[in-house]
């Protein structure tokens, strides 16, 4: 007469998962001065705003969001990344029979363990998706401010370039800037 018994099986999964998102664009800079000089002005302006130079690229990180600007090509990349340590466990049981030999018992245990692993992998995938959504939402939340700041930087660079250009043409008598409208008037004596 067979006597059934339960096999308890547990599996665990430990790993670090990463998620990343980024967007990039090209800044529109008028070529008031030669490209190298415009790049230099952009670099100076961004340095004033807390960007640090790293391998020909200006970088600034805050709140887990990194902004990279290449002053030569005027390309901007904004990225957010994050990671999470996963520690998942799951348990299940399988019914075995005392009249089974060791092979049969091991096979039942193996099948149950395999199902548990699949379940844990599915859970891990959902965690990665959730982390990705979180990173994307964080990036989206920062973009408006980053765009606004870059526009301000470009306007500043344009104004500085215009002043330099004007100085090449003649003697600057007066410079008036309206911060509200963003307009600038340069009076020049030629």
């Amino acid at each position, binding site marked *: 007469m067979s006597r059934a018994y339960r096999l308890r099986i547990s599996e665990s999964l430990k790993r670090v998962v990463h998620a990343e998102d*980024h*967007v990039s664009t090209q800044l529109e800079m008028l070529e008031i001065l030669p490209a190298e000089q415009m790049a230099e002005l952009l670099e100076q302006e961004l340095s004033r705003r807390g960007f640090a130079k790293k391998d020909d690229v200006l970088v600034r990180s805050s709140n887990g969001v990194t902004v990279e600007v290449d002053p030569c090509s005027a390309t*901007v990349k*904004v990225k957010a990344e994050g990671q999470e340590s996963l520690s998942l466990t799951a348990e299940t049981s399988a019914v075995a029979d005392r009249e089974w030999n060791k092979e049969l018992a091991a096979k039942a245990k193996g099948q149950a363990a395999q199902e548990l692993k699949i379940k844990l992998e599915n859970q891990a995938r959902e965690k990665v998706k959730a982390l990705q959504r979180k990173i*994307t939402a964080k*990036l989206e939340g920062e*973009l408006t401010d980053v*765009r606004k700041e870059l526009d301000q930087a470009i306007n500043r660079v344009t104004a500085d370039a215009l002043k330099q250009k004007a100085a090449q043409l003649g003697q600057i008598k007066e410079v008036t800037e309206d911060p509200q409208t963003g307009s600038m008037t340069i009076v020049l004596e030629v």
Partner: protein
Amino acid sequence: MKTVSPFEARMLRLLQLMLQPGPALAPTRAKGDLARPPCLSRAAVELVQDHLSKGVIHLIARQGWQHERYLRGEQIRLGRLWERSDVADLPLVFSRHALELLCRVAAQPAELEDFDPPPSEWTVADRLLLLFAYRSLQRTEVSKNLVRLQVWREDGLFQLMFPEEVSEQPVEIDWAPWTGGLGSCILEAWQAALTQRWLEVAQTRVQWTNTTKMQAQGNHQGRILDSFLAALERVGRWDLAQFLLRFFGEVLARQPTGANWIGALNVSQMRLSDRSQIYRAALVPLAGLTKLQAWQQQARSIGYFEEGYAASQLWKSLWETQRGDELCAHAERIRREVEPLG
């Protein structure tokens, strides 16, 4: 009165269908497939010749009747197609592949499976007939075999007329048949049809939700556009891109905001970087404006005694007529609206 066999009658009916000016309904398949005979009768061949010589000319005349300006060498010519060029310079020569195509289309669909002559053997007139065949049989089983032909996949005019037919493998597009000689005159005549087709394609994509499909087709259309504009630059025929200016003017009037281009796409679960790629694919047609604007800037700098002066004058005139600068500004506003960091 000429007498033909049932197969030849079917073939002639299909040819008449292909040569109809507007969209036509494909004939229903005959009850029982008609087996292709080993040889066509003299009467059938003469009727095919008659149909082609009159029907194709009629279709070209219907497309090319408008008074328009195009280049002829270093001069700008105004007039209808047959006024801009000497008729003797517009010979339509059909090769044996034209008749072979008609026979195979009239026979069982399987007859087309092993029919794939090298593109170099297709004349401009053959290619035009193939275009008419596809247009009239687009919703039938036969069309699937037509788009597998090597000449179809490589031909510039086919790709421009049907940019929604994405090739499984990207191939190098051959623009040579359509950027010189008779082919360029045909391309001039087909400008209005091309504008209409591109508008139809853009209109269809407004309702798409599938991002994979949008990206595939957008990238495909982008390749066609880049390749076409580069070919026109090489031969100095900017004027052959007139249909694009009209297309941009019309499409931006119908789809004035970013939401009109991407609104239906299901991107809420996607990463921003993936969304950007999808949006760029959706806006691919507008990217062509950047190249046309570069031509305009180049045209402004060409002096009276320089080569390409006539081409530059014509382009500047076309650009101003279609308000190219306004179109560029409008396209840029849409791009900034759509880009996450725009």
